């Protein structure tokens, strides 16, 4: 479920089909994933999951699997 929501956001922001998003999707493989788009991505994820990322988390989440991990991590921090 969380994975689907992340995929939807990636799809909306980078204009790529949801089906094409997999473990290899990263800033290296998605042409539109530049620093400006990354700013939007961070805000979009924060809005979607009601979390706020730390500086380190922001910089780290440069691929689909890392985003999923980070969102889970941030969501856990929130509940603590």
């Amino acid at each position, binding site marked *: 479920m969380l994975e689907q929501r992340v995929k939807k*956001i990636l799809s909306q*922001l980078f*204009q790529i089909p949801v089906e094409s998003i997999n473990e290899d999707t990263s800033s290296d493989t998605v042409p539109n994933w530049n620093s*400006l788009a990354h*700013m939007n991505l961070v805000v979009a994820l924060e809005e979607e999951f009601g979390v706020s990322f730390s500086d380190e988390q922001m910089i780290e989440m440069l691929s689909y699997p890392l985003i999923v991990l980070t969102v889970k991590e941030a969501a856990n921090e929130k509940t603590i």
Partner: protein
Amino acid sequence: MKTLQEIHEQIVKSTTADLIASVKEAPLNATHPVSIYFLMNFTINPIEPFLKHYLYQSNFNSDIIFGQYDNIMQEILDDQSILRTKQFDLVVCSLFYHTQDALLIESLNNPEHFINQLSTYFDNILEKTSSLLLLNTLITPFFSETGITSQVRPNQTDAILEINQFIRHYVRQHANRCFLMDWNRYTQLLGEQNSLDYRYWYMYKAPFKKDFLSLYSNDITKVARALKGKAKKCLILDCDNTLWGGIIGEDGIGGIKLDNHNYPGKVFYDFQQTVLKLSEIGVILALCSKNNEQDVWEVFEKHPYSLLRRNHFAAHRINWVNKADNIIDLVNELNIGIDSCVFVDDSKTECELIRTALPDVTVLQVPQPIYEYPALLLKAGLFDTISLNQEDASRNKKYQEENQRKQLLKKSHSVTDYLASLELVALIHPITETEIPRVTQLTQKTNQFNLNTQRYTQQQIENFYHSENSMVFSLTAKDKFGDYGLTGVLIAKKIGKKGLIDTFLMSCRVLSRNLEDVFVQTCLNYCKQKWGVTEWEADFVPSDKNMQIVPFLQKTGFTTEDNQKYFLNMNQWSQEKVTHIKVITEGITYA
């Protein structure tokens, strides 16, 4: 068509992801081209989806180009830049200065300097392009930097207000080409919380939150609409519960609510006031009401508090026919486009009918609670009916160019004029005992305009102060805007029959006003009188930062062979005459 206010409310509610996805492609009805170029000194790029959204909703297909980050002057001056080679409809000059910005802090004492810089930007854009120019105000600080005492010294709020006053004035002076994007008003409306994004400011130099970007886009879109003749021209008004409270057919002229003192009559009175203002700037007024015509005219002719009179209305349909047909009729009679109409009615049914039957008409329903009504039209911001089109803009450009040439001719004098207008006063004298700590501090702190960066302790300065063979001079300057304080030090030594300039330094913020010239002249002339010394040596010690001393020494008449020992013979010295500074040699300063 949605009002810009409705678009704003929608954007604020929607998520970033949805917004970005929604502007992936231009909609089919976005057929009117508009081109926009951003000149910027920060990362304004995140505005793109917001601006696109507004433009698409207004049937524009946009071409938005962002200039280089903080490269404004170069882009303006380079005739091969995109800005210059392609003529854009709008040039948005986006200038953001954070309250910690060095330029802003410098301008505290002297906003004039900052203002001159802005003026150079703006003049050049107007001269070198034929675009409309959108200028923003600066945001005044949310907090006082010195707390409750901020009023007793130069403070940022005052400085920014002065700069903003200049920007407003500039826009007014160039009303045919310039438009004000009043950032400071956006922050008033939104508050700090919804305006500034400190995280992205520090990480990416992108300071604005989405509400702010939405309001900014809103205003930019208004200019595009006005430029392309798509601003609204005609206001079609219902009567009962729209221009007055109550129903004239039932309540009678004595029973309807309309007056200047009581609630809710005052609400309708104020609304009429807004309508009247719009009529004065050229908005066409029309009536569309289900009523007996005679009853309606009675109000406009006889009601003591009706500001609107019969002659304010260019056309009317007061009958029992359905309003969609009436509006089509009105539009034909007035010979205007149906998309240039705004319709105001209190009835939800009537509003829905027009939205469905005539989607090009902008429909505004009288809000509940009713006290929100007077602001309705201004908030929607529909009637930017500046009589402005491409042709005006290009005619203005030629006129402007001619003016610029004349200005350029004058430019060589303008610095002198500017300096003269500062009313500079320089107090130059051998230091008093109270000045010793400040003088010491300056020898320790000053890096750039400093002959040899020789650092001294307070004890050493005191020794110079007491010695027969050395003189310590201080410079204290002020102009009509304020005091610069003690900002210059020169230490002269008598060595045999010659003089040595041991130390010469000035604080950077007082440079380029010829103060350095009068300072050196006054000190050396003083020493010549006292010691009879005419031959001088100054030992330049280069550092990473003090290279600007060299051109000064050369300009002043010092000669050198090795770029270290500089010499000056006062008998052959033609001292540059500085007339715009009043030099005082006697007096007390408070260091």
